[in-house]
């Protein structure tokens, strides 16, 4: 008998956070992520944690700021429009270097949009979203098991680098159920001598994002940039699948990468040499591995649930070397396996004619 549990992606985020030692959650309901606060509203009291439904997303993210400043592991979650509301707070968390985890279970925008799945918040997640020169660590799982693994990693990385980390998934991954194994994981906690958690017998700690003198603010920025360079050096993660002999590389992340995998299987049955490159960290973007793969293949296809956002980072690394084409759906629609297969076939036929 398997030890695995069948869980929704949203619930798995909640349980993974608990196993990672998170005892503070502040949120506000929005479809398609509401199962996550609903789950934690039951679970947090069982582990003597705090679940608080704030009056708005803005309140929730500022409660995250307060809790993180006191040194505890803390999380908030929302879906696209709600995550837009949190952006000011995320910029403050980044500047104040407060470890925290923010989850975005993406729905289709812009505006209030619709509750169906989307990946159209990629720019917002990896290129800032809030104001100023900052980055969140952005992790993009593609299965319920990987959600568990990456939520735990997000807490560890956030603590290690004193930086907000974001879990970026789409509505389908949040809603669907798959088996998960929580294993015998034990969280490792780091010392937080900077925390504002009572200053008996020591000097008070101040946590702020304001540095009025431009000279100080530039020094602060330079220090942040040095940290981002270090993260970029050490934390790039990606998956390569059937890439060994591939002529065509399909780049895709999150749930969409699984539709791509099915399309690749279908194309492989017909002898088409095609593989998947899947960024797992969206920031830092896995430039090193992508570069190696670009040197080996002949064409690139990018598939996203957007008008084309990650494709810009692919093109930056590609730097004009190979043709890059795009297939995307918007507004909550998802491409079928056959749609993506047809795109792969088109590229294959083109390459065959060329040869």
């Amino acid at each position, binding site marked *: 008998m398997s030890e695995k549990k*069948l869980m929704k992606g949203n619930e798995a985020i909640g349980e993974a956070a608990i196993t990672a030692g998170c005892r503070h959650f502040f949120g506000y309901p929005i479809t398609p992520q509401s199962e996550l606060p609903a789950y934690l509203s039951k679970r947090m009291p069982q582990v003597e944690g705090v679940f608080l439904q704030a009056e708005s997303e803005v309140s929730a993210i500022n409660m995250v700021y307060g809790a993180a400043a006191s040194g505890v592991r803390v999380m908030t979650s929302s879906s696209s429009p709600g995550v837009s509301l949190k952006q000011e707070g995320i910029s403050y968390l980044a500047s104040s270097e407060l470890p925290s985890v923010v989850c975005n279970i993406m729905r289709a925008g812009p505006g209030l949009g619709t509750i169906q799945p989307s990946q159209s918040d990629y720019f917002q997640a990896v290129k800032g979203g809030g104001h100023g020169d900052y980055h969140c660590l952005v992790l993009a799982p593609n299965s319920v098991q990987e959600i568990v693994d990456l939520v735990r990693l997000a807490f560890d990385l956030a603590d290690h680098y004193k930086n907000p980390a974001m879990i970026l998934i789409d509505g389908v991954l949040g809603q669907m159920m798959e088996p998960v194994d929580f294993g015998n994981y034990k969280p490792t906690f780091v010392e937080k001598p900077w925390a504002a958690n009572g200053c008996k017998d020591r000097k008070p700690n101040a946590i702020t994002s304001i540095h009025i003198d431009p000279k100080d603010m530039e020094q602060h920025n330079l220090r942040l940039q040095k940290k981002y360079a270090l993260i970029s050096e050490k934390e790039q993660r990606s998956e390569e699948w059937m890439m060994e002999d591939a002529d065509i590389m399909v780049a895709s992340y999150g749930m969409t990468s*699984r539709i791509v*995998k099915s399309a690749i299987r279908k194309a492989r049955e017909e002898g088409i040499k095609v593989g998947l490159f899947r960024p797992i960290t969206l920031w830092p973007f896995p430039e090193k591995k992508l570069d190696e793969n670009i040197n080996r293949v002949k064409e690139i296809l990018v598939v996203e649930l957007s008008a084309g956002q990650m494709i810009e980072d692919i093109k930056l690394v590609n730097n004009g070397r190979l043709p890059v084409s795009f297939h995307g759906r918007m507004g909550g629609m998802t491409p079928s396996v056959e749609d993506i297969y047809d795109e792969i076939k088109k590229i294959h036929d083109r390459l065959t004619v060329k040869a």
Partner: protein
Amino acid sequence: MTEDLIIAGFGGQGVMSMGQMLAYAGLSEDKNVLWMPAYGPETRGGFANCTVIVSDEEIGSPVVSHPKAVIVLNLPSLDKFEDAVVPGGVLVVNTSLVNREPKRTDIDIVHVPASDIANEIGSSRAANMVALGAFLAHKPIISIEAVKNTLKKVFAAKPQVIPLNEKALDRGAEAARVQAAV
């Protein structure tokens, strides 16, 4: 081997729980499983469907446009999903609530008066399990025994509903076998 199916009906017919039951049963047989609800602003009485994938391999796409099987519990679901079934696939129809014959001739069609049988054995709410029993008798992607064992676990806190659900599975399976023998 990968088996995928879509289960569809109206909200309240137990479409979602029936799919979850099948996924749990697949998990108990150490298969890879995936359950995905079509989620939307739906309510009781509205449209409901879910996708279940059971496989010996790593499961790729959660989005299935042409499933190997479809179970429809009402007429709008037949209208919506009849054309989706892959040629050679299976379509299970709850004839109690569907008053037309499917048009497809290139698939296996299993007729089962699921709601009538459910009423006969005690509760219309068991129609989902009758349909599931009929499907599994026709195409045993998971054993009915595994589903029964799963029922015991899922309803551990409500053991009084277990016998009805077990009976529903058996009666559905029986209806499918009688039909196959004709």
